[in-house]
């Protein structure tokens, strides 16, 4: 379980995080919404060890992460861009974390093969990153993170660069993978529909504070999230469209 207590972070005079508190249970997917510059990315980077908090505490399975290097945390941070290593083919990209952990080569081969099957890109194993489409790159990026069985997966708008059709396919894939690998994750997105679809719990980042909702219903009912307005818009879409004339 991840516990975050009273996390503060400032860049110069700008206070980005103002006492962030929340917990994340094993297997949960916490969807985080919020405006640009509200501190979502900073929060994720602090959890991954890529930034340091000014104050506050982070406990992962009752172990403090203070001062722990990113490579020892078991928390993988995925960017909006897949950032595949350009000198490695698909198979070697996915096997990257296993090779770092000096997993025997036969096991690396077996696990990579299984992951490629899960991702539906077994036929792309030998391709180089520049030969893949955006969706395929994102699949490889997922596989590379999941194969090392991370304690927490942090996703920073992972589908932000994809078109609507591929984005929907990737959401399906993510839900399938989350169920198969029992992923504990935080998922940042600007897309309300995506947040509701992939998250088991919802949170809203506002002015440096994270408000976590008990349930999706509680999130929708809060007028500050804008979710109710959006749902109402789609329900009454007919009213906005021009009427047909015979």
């Amino acid at each position, binding site marked *: 379980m991840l516990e975050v207590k009273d996390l503060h972070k400032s860049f110069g005079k700008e206070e980005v995080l103002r006492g962030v508190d929340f917990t994340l249970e094993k297997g949960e997917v916490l969807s985080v919404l919020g405006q640009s510059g509200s501190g979502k990315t900073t929060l994720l980077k602090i959890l*991954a*060890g890529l930034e340091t908090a000014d104050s506050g505490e982070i406990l992962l399975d009752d172990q403090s992460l203070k001062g722990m290097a990113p*490579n020892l945390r078991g928390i993988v*941070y995925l960017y909006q861009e897949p950032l595949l290593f350009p000198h490695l083919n698909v198979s070697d990209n996915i096997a*990257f974390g296993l090779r*770092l952990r000096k997993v025997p080569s036969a096991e690396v081969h077996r696990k990579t093969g299984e992951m490629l099957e899960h991702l539906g890109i077994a036929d792309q194993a030998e391709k180089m990153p520049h030969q893949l489409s955006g969706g395929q790159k994102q699949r490889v990026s997922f596989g590379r993170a999941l194969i090392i069985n991370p304690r927490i997966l942090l996703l920073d708008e992972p589908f932000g660069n994809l078109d609507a059709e591929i984005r929907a396919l990737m959401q399906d894939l993510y839900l399938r993978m989350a169920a198969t690998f029992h992923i504990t994750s935080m998922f940042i997105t600007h897309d309300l529909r995506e947040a509701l679809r992939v998250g088991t719990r919802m949170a809203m980042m506002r002015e440096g504070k994270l408000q976590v909702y008990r349930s999706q219903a509680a999130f929708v009912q809060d007028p500050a999230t804008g979710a109710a307005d959006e749902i109402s818009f789609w329900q009454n879409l007919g009213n906005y469209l021009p009427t047909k004339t015979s």
Partner: protein
Amino acid sequence: MKKHPFFGVVVATAILSPLMLLGIFSIGKGWPFPKIFPENWSLQNWSDAFTASSGLGQSLGLSLGIGACVAFLATISGFFSARSLAKSSRKNTWLMLAYLPYVLSPVMYAACLQVSFLFLGISGKITGVMLGHFLLAYPFAVILFTGFWNARMEAMAQLAATLGANPVSSYLKVLFPVAKGVLFVCFFQTFLLSWFEYGLTVLIGVGKVPTLTVKVYQYVTEANIHLAALAGCLLVLPPTLMLWINKRYLFTRITL
């Protein structure tokens, strides 16, 4: 697009003819005006070049040694310095300072360094010339690598870290392989900077460090046309060889 082989031939001739002329001069003996070709042909100059008396072989070795050391040190230190520079809040100030040796011109730069080198006791020594070349090549390497260390590359390094790479394995498994092309280009360019450096070498070496470039100028001022041509040929060979080895990185776009 239609190709024009004629222009290709003209360009190739323009590039190769001076080199061919150097080759002819280096193996010719006696070339009175208005004869088109030398009266005699001999490889004597080439065989003499590597005897102890001419010192050309020694100069070749010295230039290769200085060039390789300077290129290696400048490339490695430039690579790491540029990463720090990319994160610095005073990036632009540092980058502007990196252009200083080229704004001043290498000779003026050497004149400024000479006082310190005299004080350190390395003026007129190989170490002094090497340090002088390094101080010229290092800012160049830093400028070259600032383009490599962008936000995307930092994100890639951070991603590798969260996947389990410690700082050393991050460099060995990701950053060096990704930077391979630009590292080769930097090594090549800084080697050339050192290899062809004349003014700074003469000033700091005070004539006691006879690199190949210094020898060429020496033969030219002595009007020793055949030895100057021979030394010129030796001067051109290593960069040409490196150009051929590096052509893959120099003339292809690096795809990330």
